[in-house]
């Protein structure tokens, strides 16, 4: 039996922090009067950045700000899987397990997460620092396997680089997004295979 929606009831009412409130007002100002409903998605995103997930209190606050029935906000929030319906860790690790990443070793990435954090897909560490979730294809197949943590992609992962990445996050050390295998962007992994020579001389010889 599928349970998709955020359950009713929240512990306390939700309020935007002052700076987020300013951002929210800026978002609302983008839309003409009577069309505040358009701001539902950006406001939900803002709230998720502040609180980590969307509970009913967030929905009610956003509904009130956009003059929208709370039900319409719940519909939108439950439609998009990137709005989370349960609490997540400060570092929310989304592991792509679709075919490219799987063929390139996403199972190794999951094993590394399990060894390093002791949690499986859908888990949340006791200190509330990490949570792991499965993601559908995030469009970085050329750098598979990859994970998304926060807004950043971490690509070309192996068992070792995954553990190292998580270890640095645990220790609070800075990490660099992008390829963890040292490759620049999506360049060929073993170095360039074409256009390796100097540019050809002009036709007029």
């Amino acid at each position, binding site marked *: 039996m599928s349970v*998709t929606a955020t359950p009713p009831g929240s512990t306390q009412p939700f309020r935007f922090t002052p700076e987020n409130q300013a951002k929210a007002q800026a978002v609302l100002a983008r839309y003409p009067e009577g069309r505040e409903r358009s701001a539902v998605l950006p406001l939900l995103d803002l709230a998720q950045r502040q609180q980590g997930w969307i509970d009913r209190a967030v929905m009610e606050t956003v509904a009130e700000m956009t003059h929208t029935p709370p*039900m319409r906000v*719940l519909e939108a929030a439950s439609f998009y899987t990137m709005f989370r319906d349960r609490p997540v860790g400060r570092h929310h690790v989304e592991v792509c397990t679709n075919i490219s990443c799987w063929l390139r070793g996403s199972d190794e990435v999951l094993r590394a997460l399990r060894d390093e954090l002791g949690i499986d897909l859908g888990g949340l560490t006791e200190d509330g620092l990490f949570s792991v979730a499965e993601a559908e294809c995030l469009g970085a197949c050329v750098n598979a396997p990859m994970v998304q943590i926060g807004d950043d992609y971490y690509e070309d992962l192996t068992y070792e680089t995954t553990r190292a990445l998580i270890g640095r996050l645990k220790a609070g050390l800075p990490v660099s997004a992008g390829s963890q295998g040292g490759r620049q962007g999506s360049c060929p992994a073993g170095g360039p295979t074409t256009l390796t020579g100097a540019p050809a001389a002009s036709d007029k010889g």
Partner: protein
Amino acid sequence: MPKLTIDGIAVDVPAGTTVLQAAESIGIEIPRFCYHERLSIAGNCRMCLVEVKPGPPKPAASCALPVAEGMEVRTNSEMARKARRGVMEFLLINHPLDCPICDQGGECDLQDQALTFGADRSRFQESKRAVAEKNLGPLIRTAMTRCIQCTRCVRFCTEIAGVPDLGMVGRGEHAEIMPYLDGVLGSELSGNLVDVCPVGALTNGAYAYTARPWELAHTESIDVLDAVGAAIRVDTRGAQVMRVLPRLNEAVNEEWLADKSRYAIDGLKVQRLDTPWVRRDGTLKPATWAEAFDVIARRLADVPGSRIAALVGDQVDAETATVLKDLWTALGSPHLDCRQDGAALEAGARAGYVFNTTIAGIEDADAVLLIGTDPRAEAPLINARLFKRFRKGGLRVGRVGLSGRDLIYPVEDLGDDPSVLTAIAGGTHPFAEVLKAAQRPMLIVGQGALARPDGAAVLALARAIAEATGMVIEGWNGFNVLHTAAGRVGALDLGLVPGEGGRDAAGIVSGCAEGAIEAVYLVGADERDLSGLGQAFVIYQGSHGDAGAQVADVILPGAAWTEKDATYVNTEGRVQRATRAVLPPGEAREDWKIVRALAEALGHRLPLDTLAQVRARMVALAPVLGRLDTLAPAGWAPFGRAGTVAATPFAPAVTNRYMTCPITRASPTMAACVRAFLNGNEKRTGTDG
């Protein structure tokens, strides 16, 4: 006017019409689930696929496809049929095979259309999905696994009922319909979800597992539990009313019905008076009709007419009122009143006590002033019309009294003090400008504003506002009285008000206490405090053992509205006929026959022996009652009595919206509604379950 051909038939329809509507206009029915004439177009069930040329070579959803010049539509081509078969196969993938235990079985759109487009086997080998039941309160029973996600219920709640509490949550395989909060569907029109749902996902909770549609006999009738007079169909099996469904009447209820009218019918089986009762030595004892009339005749033998009074209840039909009026004339008693709540309505000018604008006319109004009325509680269908008007935009609603009540559309509260009315009438209040600026302004006076000592002054004030703000113009009358009693307008038409020197309802009760009135005849009158009748001899006639029966000395068992052929006049002044669906229980009889027999027992043989004679007499007394189902505008004539209006705020006319009459008070379903929806917020009244 684009011209197109549908199945080879040339059609000429206005631009903006959809292909489905165009096909319907020439009698071609295209199967559909999500499309509903009164709801917005969703286009998500895909059952209405048709083949359209010119265009891409693929089927198109006809419900969402506007007609275009030169279009060639084929609704029954091999391509269209194949597409529908495919859609049906998808719909049935997750639909359970529980038709034999489903209440919708026999009147299910999916069942009917599966007969035409369904395959006899499924190619789906995986597990079907299951969806948790939702709690929508005591009226609606859910089986959400049967849902086909047509979203009609979501659109109904948002667009008609005005409570956007239902929604489709999740996506794809996980999509499901659910309320925002469990168990709370705060609409008094929620029963219509059952009619709107094309499958058995939302079914009638009170009717669950009691009957199959093919076992039921249908009787077309009129609802009397509020004064709207909605057209209903009474479904009966044997001697029982199994359910009530709305009938189409564009002028009154469109195709909706208020929950109270739909669900209160289980009150027809409870607390029934099925035999006459006579009080002997202080206790009521069952009796025969002859004994009961004998007791009355002997008790009233030497009582002069001037010491006999009658109080007429809220659901008394016009036939009974006619016979009663003649009997009271014969007795020579002026003490007769149909306004048991004390509303200051006069029987004179008809425009002064009906809903002149008409219910359909609300859709033309552009400014509304509500005076001491809560239409959501008093007449949910009229409130739904106001909401429909509001959705078109440009409607301003002001309210005096009963402020703070949620009416599903925005209302400007002008204050609880009735003196605001004086300001509006005098043109000094800003809302007076709103009304004056409006093309078609209207006001609605509730019974709460009239049923008070200064009610006549309030009525005169409302009339002054109507005249001052241009509400009564050629072709438009914006003065409206909203009734809560189905029999009130008919009784006023027949002049069931105190005669020369007669006492009104309050006067009759106090007269009983003082001894000035020796005998009082309560014809279905239960809504007053009847404890102070003193030593008076009380005859109660009615269908249920309620307040009136408790104090009666003789009880004459009458019929409820499903048990008699009767005429009722709704709040607009529309004369409509209710039809007998079942027989009254036990010894109970139709009410006009009881009054007729009582007249004979009292020595006044009225020349009214058949229903036809009674109706002829009724039309003779009030010619307006001879015009059935249609309305004639009532002439504008003086009514009301100018005076000072006290500063006390208006009291609500309906204190408990689910229990307003003996039938609803006896109904277990209505008691469940009070528990579920009112949470003690509205006062319980009388002898509720």
